[in-house]
């Protein structure tokens, strides 16, 4: 809410990044792989939360960008000889930016339930296309992806090495996450919050709120495509799972469990989700059910998510009245 809180989150962000650098030193390869996955999903969940937490827009179609990013990466690497790894990521971002703009133009007048419904329907369309357009997407079989090595001029980094790919992901995706954090402080970032708070007044201050929503939708789509591109590189495979509605749901669960009211909430949520999934699936096949129950209980009792819970505990400890949800995104989505 105030500037100090932002700075705190900034310091936290840098601290988390530094922590990230020592992960491969202390943890076995198996854990490093999980952390790599969690970093990629952190970006996905953050891009989702820029819609949900910051703009108050509930989307069930975020996987259409994630999946498009993954497919475009796979297709680009499969069809363009000698395409560098970052080139593929860049193409994926361009493609999802265009996708976001086109779909966003159809949605821009709608908010609330209608927006949620339409995003779901459009995601279903993307899913159908990915399933049916076998010659390009491989249909149900999916596409395999070969990670090209990264040439830095003086040396070449072997991307099939787990640790090297981890650092690559940490730096590139980490930069994207930092940019998202910076975005929340820019003119556009503030505009998004102000529109959620009082759209009518924003119109009377000269803001075209539909255009603003379109820009945000396109931006978050590009970010989800960015994450999707790394998802394809990470699994070295792209399948219809990446573009299914369930994938968008995963982003929703991560953002909500971590807390939609703070910037780092979705990162927290992504790590909890990935590690809980890994842990639970050792014992039971029913982990989605458990995840769903956790989600419902949080909707009913802890709407601020884990980070909201921590903040209110902290405030209670420091003797102040717990202003529930009075966090970075200015309160819960009323």
């Amino acid at each position: 809410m105030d500037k100090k809180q932002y700075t705190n989150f900034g310091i936290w962000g840098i601290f988390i990044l530094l922590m990230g650098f020592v992960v491969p030193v202390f943890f076995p390869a198996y854990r490093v792989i999980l952390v790599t996955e969690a970093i990629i999903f952190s970006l996905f969940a953050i891009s989702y939360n820029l819609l949900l937490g910051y703009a108050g827009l509930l989307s069930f179609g975020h996987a259409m960008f994630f999946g498009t990013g993954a497919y475009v990466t796979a297709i680009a690497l499969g069809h363009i000889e000698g395409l560098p790894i970052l080139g593929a990521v860049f193409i994926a971002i361009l493609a999802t930016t265009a996708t976001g703009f086109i779909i966003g133009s159809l949605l821009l007048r709608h908010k609330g339930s209608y927006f949620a419904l339409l995003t779901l329907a459009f995601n279903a369309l993307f899913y159908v296309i990915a399933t049916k357009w076998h010659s390009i997407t491989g249909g149900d079989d999916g596409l395999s992806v070969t990670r090209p090595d990264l040439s830095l001029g003086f040396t070449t980094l072997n991307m099939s090495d787990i640790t090297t790919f981890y650092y690559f992901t940490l730096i590139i995706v980490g930069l994207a996450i930092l940019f998202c954090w910076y975005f929340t402080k820019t003119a556009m970032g503030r505009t998004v919050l102000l529109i959620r708070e009082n759209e009518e007044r924003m119109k009377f201050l000269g803001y075209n709120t539909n255009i603003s929503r379109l820009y945000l939708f396109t931006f978050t789509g590009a970010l989800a495509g960015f994450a999707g591109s790394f998802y394809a590189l990470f699994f070295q495979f792209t399948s219809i799972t990446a573009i299914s509605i369930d994938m968008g749901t995963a982003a929703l669960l991560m953002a909500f469990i971590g807390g939609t009211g703070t910037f780092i909430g979705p990162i927290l949520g992504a790590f909890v989700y990935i590690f809980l999934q890994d842990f639970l699936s050792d014992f039971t096949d029913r982990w989605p059910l458990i995840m769903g129950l956790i989600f419902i209980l949080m909707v009913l009792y802890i709407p601020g998510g884990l980070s909201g819970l921590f903040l209110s505990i902290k405030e209670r400890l420091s003797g102040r009245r717990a202003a529930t949800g009075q966090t970075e995104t200015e309160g819960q989505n009323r």
Partner: protein
Amino acid sequence: MSDIPVFFLHGLAYAGLLFLVSSGLTLVFGMMNVLNFAHAAFYMLGAYFSYTVLRITGNFWLSIIICPILLFLIGALVERFLLRRVHAFGHLHELLLTFGLAYIITESVKWIWGNYPLAVSIGGFLSGQVDLFGLTYPIYRLFILLCAVIVGLIMCFVIYKTKVGVIVRAAVNDSEMVNALGINVSSVFMNVFAAGAALSGFAGVIAGPLLTTYPNMANEILIDAFVVIVVGGFGSLGGALLASLIIGELQSFGVLLIPKLSMALIYMLMAAVLVIKPSGLFGEE
């Protein structure tokens, strides 16, 4: 092309199912301003409950009566103890709650009944064929159509001819006004929500023997029902009816004419409506 009447009837039967599901969805939305993502999960529960009732009793007519009643109760409980609870947190939380419910119901169904299709056979004369204008046609599809018409007529009667209907229509138009009139809106809400669940469950029961009963059936009809609402216009029963017919026929003839694109057709229709008339065919600006 003697196929055409057959595909037309197929389309009508699916339109009937769609109307049963989407009419409840659109009424609940119009009244309570809650888009119920769990609505199609009620439909799926109807089909699975029916499967179990049939396994135990073997009596389809019994299951047609029992299952909607069960879903009415479930709907009432969901509205009273879950939805009403999060109402104060705002619109977004209501959506999230119904979505979470749908998620849990789907996962529970996978757990209890297994993550694979179940065959529901009903036997008796319903599973037979009938000669219709010189072609043989399955009786069951005609039965579905008949059910949809009967339920549709009952619904029209309730909504346009009874006192409850007046309140429902007023609430769709302006829920604050109904509140101001001192009518016990919360009990009306609960009953309409539960009735919507029962209708959806009923659709599930009769859909079971026609379509496969499997855990993704909820998602599939949910998306179709959403398209019905977008095309027909939010909160409009007439719109839901017309859009159900259009989409039912579009699905049916799409398979016949352009099988590869058939599934994408309805989304193209939806996109076209969004561009031309964003509020839907019967929607108000």
